């Protein structure tokens, strides 16, 4: 009995914390990194006062947010107002359950992993809509509607991109998808090459899905002040913030897993030496590669934000519906042909 509880309850929760706690830390560091990077791109210093190089800035922010008052607007719906941040946070975190960090380094090796991810990302829209509606404020409602319409539009494009990956991999399991990208030609075997248009669409849709610049009309400080979370303050706001950044990191990891071979090494098959376990991962692959790839994508989020002006709303909708969805639909069939006629080599495991 005791052993069973240990196996079924304690260990999984420890694993979960092993994912969740670093994730929260990563969000904190990512916020710091964002401000730093954008500072540099604007030829500024960025945060540099708190802690060495300003490293503790993010933690100071967290503490500040937590000890601030959580304001409940007078005309708001209390229950929904507090439920909304939870509904934003839970899918953003729960989606991590199926991400494989390395060979057998996965919390849940679910068969329908990709479908589960799609389900979790589709739940994120609830937090947005409910926040906007529960606040009972014009700006919040406008932001929520815009954001919801945008998120669901890009979800379609994202879903179709996922299908392209599945067609090549032939499995809904994320570990199988990574294995399918293994081969003797290193990074040339990854799916980004046969699925190049889809890969680009996927990442851009990911940016739009997380409501990040240049697709951040939902927040649009200059027009609707902050969009759906304009009324939120203190820890309730912190939860939205946490969810948004966790989602960004999630999209970065997913792009790496689906298109850039997950934990596989780009030099796989090029070098076969056996030097030492400390060095071998450079060509045999390991979770460090996944982190490097994800970091690159996460950096792109910041780069976009610093570089591009905001899209207009009609432009966003046009890009999603009239450009991305048609291309993605066409590529589903192209990918089908690739697989059927054997134009790409699909690895079956290392």
């Amino acid at each position: 009995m005791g052993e069973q509880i240990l196996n079924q309850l304690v260990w999984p929760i420890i694993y979960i914390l092993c994912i969740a706690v670093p994730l929260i830390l990563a969000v904190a560091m990512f916020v710091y990194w964002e401000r730093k990077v954008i500072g540099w791109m604007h030829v500024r210093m960025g945060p540099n006062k708190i802690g060495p190089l300003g490293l503790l800035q993010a933690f100071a922010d967290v503490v500040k947010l937590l000890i601030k008052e959580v304001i409940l607007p007078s005309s708001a719906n209390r229950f929904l107002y507090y439920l909304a941040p939870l509904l934003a946070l839970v899918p953003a975190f729960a989606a991590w359950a199926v991400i494989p960090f390395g060979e057998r380094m996965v919390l849940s090796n679910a068969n329908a992993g990709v479908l589960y991810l799609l389900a979790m990302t589709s739940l994120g829209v609830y937090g947005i809509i409910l926040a906007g509606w529960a606040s009972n404020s014009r700006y919040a409602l406008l932001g929520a509607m815009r954001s919801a319409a945008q998120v669901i539009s890009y979800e379609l494009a994202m879903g179709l991109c996922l299908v392209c990956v599945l067609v090549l991999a032939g499995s809904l399991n994320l570990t199988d998808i990574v294995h399918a990208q293994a081969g003797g030609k290193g990074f040339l075997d990854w799916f980004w090459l046969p699925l190049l248009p889809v890969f680009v669409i996927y990442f851009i849709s990911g940016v739009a899905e997380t409501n990040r610049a240049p697709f951040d009309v939902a927040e649009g400080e200059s027009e609707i002040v902050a969009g759906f979370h304009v009324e939120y303050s203190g820890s309730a706001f912190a939860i939205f913030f946490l969810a948004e950044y966790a989602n960004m990191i999630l999209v970065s990891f997913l792009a790496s897993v689906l298109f850039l071979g997950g934990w596989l090494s780009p030099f796989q098959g090029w070098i076969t030496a056996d030097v030492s376990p400390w060095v071998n991962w450079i060509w045999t692959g390991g979770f460090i590669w996944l982190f490097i790839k994800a970091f690159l994508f996460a950096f792109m989020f910041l780069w976009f934000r610093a570089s591009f002006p905001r899209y207009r709303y009609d432009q966003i909708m046009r890009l999603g519906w009239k450009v991305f969805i048609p291309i993605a639909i066409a590529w589903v069939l192209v990918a089908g042909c690739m697989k059927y006629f054997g134009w790409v080599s699909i690895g079956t495991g290392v």
Partner: protein
Amino acid sequence: MIDPNLFQLICFYAFGVVTVGAALAVITLKNSVHAVLALVLTFFSTACIWLLAEAEFLAIALIVVYVGAVMVLFLFVVMMLDIKQEQVREGFIRYLPVGIVVALVMLVEMLALIGVRAMQAIPMGANPAAAAGMSNTAWLGTALYTQYLLPFEIAALILTVGVVAAVALTLRQRADRRHESASQQVRVNARDRVRIVKMAAEQPARTTAQPQQPGDQEAKP
């Protein structure tokens, strides 16, 4: 040791209670947004029950399609329409006794027909996918795309009709709307938009009249 079957049974009843409770909440809650959220919970716990039956594809597809898409539309509609709560309530109270009687009759009939002995049975039958030696999704896909090919294509037809009906019934062309056409914008050449005019330099010293403003930049309609 907890018997896995017993654990499964406990889970089944737990999710079942949540499902039924949430479904009751859907029809009793005053606030219609709350009711929609209760419906979301109903779908979610139903998905969990399906997971117990090892129908993982259907379970998650239920969340993707119903919770992720259909319920979002419900929320859009319920939030944005002002439904008068009291009226809805009135009808509910009035028809409540009839509803309860019908529900009770149906419950009794179901119990009588399906049998009380079914309650002792393990709720989930054998998993045909596992018997066939493949994952649930693959099993479902194989059935859908070989045996049920024709219904699958009819489903596409129904979806297309849905698109047509939705557009035909809801879309209204407003006279005052302006939108830009990307293809036109891309096709424009600099020559069409800007006309560079050569003209003599003005001599402000000689004349007191306002200098004329020639259209050196002229936007075409």
